[in-house]
């Protein structure tokens, strides 16, 4: 077989050789990367579907919530545990509780600290709450004092009688009419608001049945709201209408 005949024989195999080379070259460059992409895309789709389900669940949950009820509940809970220290409110509330229970608030002593900043900035301790302490000197009959303690435990904002120190206990005609004098240490609490409402795809916080019963219990607590100015004639602003 001469050189020409070998060359002409090879010529007949150009097509198969070209095809095999083409497939061998394109497979790793084109086909295999594309095939590898399929499971990745499927994974992404599964994750998207999961996220979509969570979001649609969250949306339907949000749609089913009653905005007015949420507002009332959050107002109640913020009244129970305010975000800001309000020394004046604590003091007026204490005075009101004392007078409502026929007890006499003789004097008070407190170190409110920072009151204009959010309580979160004021505290650096382990406790999540920022208590403000008020030492009150009092005099009361036993029954009134007993009612006073009950009132403080059933009042909003939440307060705690931390310590009681009786300086004088005197009995009148009967031991049931004891006259008590002393000091009570009153703690009122504040806690910062959550800094963020969380990621948009994070699920909504669930309110447990215990949380609901706690809210119902707090609704029964005494709420001392600052008395608004007595309503009289509406104030006329600007020029009075000369042609009524």
């Amino acid at each position, binding site marked *: 077989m001469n050189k020409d005949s070998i060359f002409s024989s090879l010529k007949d195999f150009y097509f198969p050789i070209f095809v095999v080379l083409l497939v061998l070259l394109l497979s790793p460059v084109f086909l295999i990367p594309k095939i590898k992409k399929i499971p990745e895309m499927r994974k992404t789709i599964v994750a998207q579907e999961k996220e979509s389900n969570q979001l649609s669940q969250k949306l339907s949950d949000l749609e089913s*919530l009653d905005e007015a009820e949420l507002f009332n509940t959050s107002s109640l809970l913020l009244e129970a545990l305010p975000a800001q220290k309000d020394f004046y409110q604590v003091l007026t509330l204490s005075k009101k509780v004392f007078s409502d229970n026929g007890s006499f608030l003789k004097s008070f002593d407190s170190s409110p600290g920072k009151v204009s900043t959010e309580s979160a900035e004021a505290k650096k301790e382990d406790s999540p709450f920022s208590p403000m302490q008020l030492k009150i000197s009092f005099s009361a009959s036993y029954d009134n004092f007993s009612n006073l303690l009950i009132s403080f435990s059933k009042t909003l904002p*939440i307060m705690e009688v*931390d310590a009681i120190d009786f300086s004088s206990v005197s009995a009148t005609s009967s*031991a049931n009419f004891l006259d008590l004098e002393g000091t009570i240490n009153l703690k009122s609490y504040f806690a910062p608001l959550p800094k963020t409402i969380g990621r948009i795809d994070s699920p909504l916080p669930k309110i447990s049945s215990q949380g609901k019963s706690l809210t119902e219990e707090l609704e029964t607590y005494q709420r001392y709201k600052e008395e608004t100015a007595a309503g009289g004639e509406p104030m006329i602003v600007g020029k009075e209408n000369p042609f009524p």
Partner: protein
Amino acid sequence: MQVKTEINLTGEASKEDLLFQQFKRKSRHFAVFVLSLFALASFVVLVALFILNRQMNANENNISLLKTGIKKYEKRESSLVIIANRIDAISSLLKTRTSYTKAIADLRLILTPDFIPQTLEIGSDGSLKISGSCPDSRALAAFDKTVEQLAQDGDYAKVIYPSVGRQESGGYSVSLELKK
């Protein structure tokens, strides 16, 4: 002499040529098959990618629509987050809050009409320290009966009389500790 019966119509060279032609044809068929297979695989993969891509885009649109919908209710969500935060905080606060209700109720039992208290201390854990006097032994017995009753109830870990004495006037001085 035997006569040769087989007649060879083609020569050795043309037989090789025939085999070569067959091989050439088979290799072409194989090349066409490989190419077709590659084309088919590429087509299937591209179609799959197209479908998956479309699904991904649809999901992406759906997610962004849902996020827009959720943003509309941002106020409700923030209220709910505040509620959950406050419920947790208030629950833990109420769990640890000192309660004097029990101490006050017990004190009411102890302070019988015949007992004249002089000092009174209520600890933050609800423990009680009382000192006072009883005018006679009958009053002291009544006082002790009430204290025993409280001790039996098991609400106090220790019930201690640090001192009981008789006064010149005939009365009895008593000091009592009820420890939690």
